[in-house]
């Protein structure tokens, strides 16, 4: 009874995003409301990170149009707003993929994020799990109008664990917030300003705080990568496995990136937005350097099983068991009309066959494994 009463008292706000209405708690951001809806309605977020206080507002990829501020004041907002830093009002109407203005501005942001990007995906360890790749694929335009030399920097050595490629950095500040919030003394930061701003330690210094490895997980691009995994494998050849160990420093709940019996890389577990998941105890699942860099043997870990992978992820190309299909929102956005599928890649491709679960194949997959069954 008391519980029921409480639920009644808590007034929820109704917010409509791309024609889909959800009830959310006051104080929720537009981005979070959109994540509750899921699917294509969710704006891409390159700098916001829900586990990092103060993050967001910078990259401008999550811009949306507010067509009506609230029921009480239904005026539209004149400018596009950063959905990650704008809280909803009751009766707010938001347009994301149904707004031409948003799509144009977003394509603009993607173009600008890419003009100085080296596009060195073929030699970048982040390729395959890079948010900038996904963003460009989904919201960018083919070709570039930029005809100048791309920006370069004097390389800085951040020590034995973390590899910095400043040319790939999108200055999302996530690594700065991470160091501020997870370590007792931040040793790197952003020097200089404008398009010559860079991540550095000022005086050449190794980053060696026991939790600093998490900057690799929060970095949306290949600017900060794991030196112990450098050039060892492509992520889509490895199999993500949930595993844990009894760790005196952190929760010890991690994701192993394995090939056969070899552990190639250890990372924190991530959710479908690419953010570190909560541990079973409900705390953010940051992991310590020891788990991440030094426990590279299966003997170190209790393996729980294959990680759930979102079908949109390149990693899912391995067709792991536990693949989750993201919610399709397009018919709802389009007022009930279903988008016309021009081609179903699973039907026409011999290779991309969802019924084959690569994680069940011993060792590296071979083209023979994809041969259509002989009738």
């Amino acid at each position: 009874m008391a519980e029921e009463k409480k639920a009644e008292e808590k007034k929820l706000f109704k917010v409509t995003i791309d024609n889909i209405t959800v009830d959310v708690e006051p104080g929720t951001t537009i981005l979070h409301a959109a994540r509750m809806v899921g699917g294509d309605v969710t704006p891409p977020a390159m700098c916001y990170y829900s586990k990092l206080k103060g993050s967001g507002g910078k990259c401008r990829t999550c811009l949306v149009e507010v067509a009506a501020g609230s029921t009480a004041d239904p005026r539209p907002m004149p400018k596009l707003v950063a959905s990650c830093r704008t809280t909803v009002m009751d009766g707010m109407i938001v347009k994301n993929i149904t707004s031409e203005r948003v799509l144009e501005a977003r394509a603009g942001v993607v173009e600008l994020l890419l003009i100085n990007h080296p596009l060195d995906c073929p030699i970048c360890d982040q390729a395959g799990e890079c948010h900038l790749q996904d963003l460009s694929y989904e919201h960018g335009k083919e070709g570039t109008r930029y005809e100048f030399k791309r920006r370069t920097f004097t390389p800085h050595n951040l020590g034995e664990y973390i590899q910095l490629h400043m040319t790939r950095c999108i200055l999302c500040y996530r690594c700065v917030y991470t160091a501020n919030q997870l370590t007792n003394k931040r040793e790197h930061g952003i020097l200089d300003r404008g398009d010559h701003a860079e991540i550095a330690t000022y005086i050449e210094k190794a980053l060696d705080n026991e939790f600093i490895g998490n900057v690799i997980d929060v970095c949306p691009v290949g600017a900060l990568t794991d030196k112990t995994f450098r050039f060892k494998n492509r992520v889509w050849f490895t199999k993500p496995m949930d595993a844990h160990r009894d760790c005196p420093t952190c929760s010890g709940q991690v994701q192993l990136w394995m090939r056969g019996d070899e552990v190639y890389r250890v990372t924190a577990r991530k959710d479908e937005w690419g953010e570190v998941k909560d541990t079973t105890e409900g705390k953010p699942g940051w992991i310590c350097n020891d788990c991440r860099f030094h426990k590279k043997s299966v003997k170190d870990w209790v393996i729980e099983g294959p990680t759930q992978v979102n079908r949109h992820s390149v990693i899912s190309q391995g067709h792991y068991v536990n693949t989750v299909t993201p919610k399709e929102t397009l018919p709802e956005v389009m007022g009930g009309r279903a988008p016309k599928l021009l081609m179903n890649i699973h039907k026409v491709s011999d290779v991309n066959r969802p019924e084959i679960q690569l994680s069940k194949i011993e060792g590296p997959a071979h083209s023979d494994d994809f041969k259509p069954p002989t009738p």
Partner: protein
Amino acid sequence: MSVKLLLEKAHVEGIRSFDVYRREGGYRSVEKALKTMSPDAVTEEVKKSGLRGRGGAGFPSGLKWSFLAKPEGVPRHLVCNADESEPGTFKDRYLMEFIPHLLIEGLIVSSFALGSHATYIYIRGEYAWIPDILEQAIAEAKNNGFLGKNILGSGFDCEIYVQRGAGAYICGEETALIESLEGKRGNPRIKPPFPAVKGVWDRPTVVNNVETLAAVVPIINMGGEEYAKIGVGKSTGTKLISACGNINKPGVYEIDMTISVEEFIYSDEYCGGIPNGKRLKACIPGGSSVPILPANLLLKTAKGETRYMNYESLADGGFATGSMMGSGGFIILDEDQCVVKNTYTLARFYRHESCGQCSPCREGTGWMEKILKNIDTGKGKMSDIDLLWDIQRKIEGNTICPLGDAAAWPVAAAIRHFRDEFEWHVNNPQESQTRNFGLAHYADPIYVPA
């Protein structure tokens, strides 16, 4: 003949000293406010005066003050924005350098109105010699009982501190200024929350321009209603204009906002016309961020009416055919000036000054600068002009702070009004390196001094 409220006494011998300033009637407003008025009554006078922020945006100051949150037990702060880094703007420097006590007086009265017991002046790093002048004025005011504890026996305590910036234009943006004042990297904050609710150290804060705060002195002395009678419409009081470029008498002028742009440029009381018999080509009327206007749209509006030196008239026609009062940095270009080079120079500035937090401004300013450099040096392509237009559109309105807009507007306005000059540069790569495009249609109507 115009009224002078701020600079009238600026050239009295020895006015920098407390004694002379006081003898000339200084600090009367502090006595009046602290002894006979309540803080809210002071705010009320500022509201009545119609004073608008002199830092660029022109927001009504009294209204801004009334937004200040006043939670129990939380200190509030007044911060004076003396970062003045907008190219073409140097009015605050003049005021602080020549009549520093006027600012200190305005700060005391304003601090009283807002309940700020610790007030800060954040001053541009390059104004290296001015903090000493201000600190001396503060010390003198304190010695004479106008600062410190229990000012004039009113029970009001106030200290003023001078903080130097390190030379970043972005630290003039009020939330970047607050970050810098707190000792952090000068990145603008994401709003809301606004400074009126969470400013310095998360306390309610008002940030005002030097000139705005100095104007509080005459407002209290003469009363808000009297002050509002000076000027025209919503452009009340006097405004400091720093005039520079191709004029005979560059400098800082105090105008009441009823004079025409034509009078301001050509009369001997102000800029004194354009040197060497050259003709007027264009003008950036409110500091580098505001749209440039060709001569034909500067002296008269698109409707053919006389354009005046005030907020409304300068903005008449919107961005299509108008500009903005901005911070009052009035830059004149004569027929020998190249709009492409000018635009490139401004783009270089904005690229250098972007804080780099948000992608459109960080990347877009650099790209625009590179393209403009190409066009300026005869390496441009015709498609570059449309590309520039497209880039500025991608920046404008999509950034955290208005620096993005400030970088986009000059480029947009230059292309909007001077497209033929850009095209001429592209079509005549060699010739454009040896001579300027000249005037074309912009000087129409051609001004003939009477």
